[in-house]
């Protein structure tokens, strides 16, 4: 990262740079950009809500800290205009960012020569897989959070249903990617590639492969049924199934391609050490610690955003708004409106 900032790595022999042709270096750029854009988008979105909490703080400590992090937010229309623009820009940046970051990350595998990895389907496969896995993870957390925080009126069954539909769509793309990999492995006539896939399905790690297939291909297809995708318990269970399936996908991609590649005398079996397992459990701990800290100290739903759409989507107001004509808009005059409350 030092040299990618324009400074050479310190050493006694002169300038030493990173290798910009290496996917590992691309990862540095991609993942750190992903992290910083996401962090900024998240933090900027929180600022108005932090200001709300600051205004309602009861202790001096809370007032200080929430005041500090809300950056002096006043709610002036000028700052709201800039806030909206920033949200627009960041949303516009984030979408191609997701696509490009997961493409870059897939190239750690795709630009190698290992059979099972060296295939051009990887970028779209990983992008779809990321969105698939991400939505499943969100479902797992959200279904519990909305009940615990009593947000059922704000995060409704419709929202859950929409997310399940996205899971079905991206799960189908992932399923097609599996078929494409398999087909190309045969169609290419490359015996190493063909063997890699036969090994995946029938070799010593066949159980991981079939877990992956069941969880990632079959379970999202269940959400075609409206009854299933509007059922909260089933959604929760299937989101966990998808998370497990994606874990197995990563396991299959890494282990089955590495344990048997070109040279049979190098073939071996992988067994995890206590450090691998410990690392994995640690990652759960880190994730849940951060998530619980977030849920404890910060608003889980963007209050300002809910307020701004309240009238339009709330079931308690019905407002008949007459849209102003262009002439009226340009005179800064808005036309008459009627409010009809139940």
């Amino acid at each position, binding site marked *: 990262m030092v040299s990618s900032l324009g400074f050479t790595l310190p050493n006694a022999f002169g300038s030493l740079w990173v290798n910009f*042709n290496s996917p590992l270096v691309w990862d540095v750029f991609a993942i750190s*950009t992903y992290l910083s854009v996401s962090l900024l988008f998240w933090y900027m979105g929180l600022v108005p809500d932090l200001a709300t909490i600051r205004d309602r703080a009861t202790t001096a400590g809370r007032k200080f800290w929430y005041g500090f992090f809300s950056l002096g937010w*006043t709610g002036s*229309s*000028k700052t*709201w205009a800039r806030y909206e623009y920033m949200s627009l*820009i960041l949303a516009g940046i984030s979408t191609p960012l997701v696509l*490009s970051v997961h*493409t870059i990350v897939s190239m750690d595998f795709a630009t190698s020569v290992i059979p099972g990895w060296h295939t051009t389907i990887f970028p779209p496969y990983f992008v779809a897989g990321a969105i698939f896995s991400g939505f499943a993870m969100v479902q797992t957390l959200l279904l519990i959070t909305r009940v615990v925080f009593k947000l059922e009126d704000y995060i409704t069954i419709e929202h859950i249903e929409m997310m399940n539909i996205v899971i079905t769509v991206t799960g189908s793309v992932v399923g097609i990617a599996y078929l494409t990999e398999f087909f190309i492995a045969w169609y290419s006539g490359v015996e190493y590639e063909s063997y890699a896939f036969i090994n995946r399905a029938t070799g010593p790690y066949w159980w991981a492969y079939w877990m992956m297939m069941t969880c990632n291909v079959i379970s999202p297809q269940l959400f075609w049924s409206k009854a299933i995708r509007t059922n909260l318990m089933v959604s929760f269970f299937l989101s966990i199934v998808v998370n497990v399936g994606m874990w197995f996908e990563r396991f299959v991609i890494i282990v089955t391609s590495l344990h048997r590649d070109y040279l049979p005398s190098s073939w071996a079996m992988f067994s995890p050490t206590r450090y691998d397992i410990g690392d994995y459990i640690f990652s759960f701990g880190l994730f849940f610690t951060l998530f619980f800290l977030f849920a404890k100290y910060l608003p889980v739903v963007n209050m300002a955003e809910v307020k*701004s759409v309240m009238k339009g989507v709330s079931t308690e107001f019905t407002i008949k708004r007459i849209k102003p004509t262009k002439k009226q808009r340009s005179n800064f005059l808005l036309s008459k409106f009627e409010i009809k409350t139940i």
Partner: protein
Amino acid sequence: MSSTTNYILGVYDDEDEVLHAVGEVKAKGIKVEDVYSPFPIHGLDVAVGHERTRLPIAAFMFGTLGMICAFSLISYTMVFDWPMIIGGKDFFALPNWIQLPLKERYYSRLLALFLLSVSQMIYGQVIRLFL
């Protein structure tokens, strides 16, 4: 010489009323200083007559600058300073590099957005405290 300025303060509990009031007030020729709200009201900044923010332009400029800087760094290091034969490929390996300046663009935009918006907010507070 002291001059007195009179202000009108309006308090509303409905966003459509605010918009309507702003329209009426401006039609009478009274300048609207500012409108404070707990959530963004669509159409309000146009109604009040604020000038359009130049944040997107700044973000674009910073992004382009970031792209140019990143591209220059990569070309210089890989073609002039330390050219290496990697996989038999050309020194100027654009297909390898193309996404790095594009990422750097995000960084720069990010930096621009963050610095500009934070500094505006803090500056506003400083002004408010001292004036």
